[in-house]
């Protein structure tokens, strides 16, 4: 019977890094809610989704431990996001070009 829980792979992120990431995520949430109350005109979606992209990068990079993984895992992760963006762009193509 296995008595160890050691797994192959990179060491888990440090506690301080996890808390720092969380604080940054909450700050970005506060920023995006505040900026939504301002009239930014046509820049609004770029600001809102830019902040969402930054939050996503933190979650993927630190919480999902993408940062500590090897090149193959990174490549697969990047490909998944890439095709997701392609799918979303094709879905919205008609709406965005009218």
């Amino acid at each position: 019977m296995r008595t160890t829980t050691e797994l192959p792979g990179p060491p888990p992120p440090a506690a301080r890094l996890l808390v720092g990431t969380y604080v940054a995520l909450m700050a970005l949430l506060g920023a995006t809610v505040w900026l939504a109350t301002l009239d930014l005109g046509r820049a609004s979606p770029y600001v809102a989704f830019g902040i969402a992209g930054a939050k996503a990068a933190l979650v993927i990079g630190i919480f999902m431990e993408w940062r500590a993984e090897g090149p193959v895992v990174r490549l697969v992760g990047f490909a998944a996001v890439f095709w997701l963006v392609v799918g979303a762009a094709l879905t919205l193509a008609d709406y965005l070009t009218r």
Partner: protein
Amino acid sequence: MLVGVGAINTALLLTSSLTAAWAARLAKGPRTAWLSVLLAATALLGVAFLGLKGYEYVRHYQDGLWPGTRFAPPEGAATPGLEMFFVAYYVLTGAHALHVTIGSVAFGWLARLVASRPDGTPRARPVELAALYWHFVDLVWIFLFPALYLLRQGP
């Protein structure tokens, strides 16, 4: 839209991602009682999210914002495409809520499993996989929140 409720729900999910990531971190190390606590906390934060989401749905229904023959938005709030927006809103948030439900059950189950096994059986892999799933559910919400709550004018 109830932007305040949406913001609180975003904060709940971000907090649950921290507890999930911390659980995955602890699961790789020596045995600790905190692992079960963090797994349960993640599940409870998911349930809290669902509770607030349900509250929002009830409010929308009371405001006549349920698509179909009963669709009757408040006076002055009706804009072109509003009903279509709410169809997309319910499909997107409903599919997301279903996945939050699955994740909450998974984390609750893991918390119970870890608490009931004092022999330190392998637990890192299931916790790590559940955390990856949970972070992805969080990621989807990170984009749904600005798309549905912040960039939308009107009710």
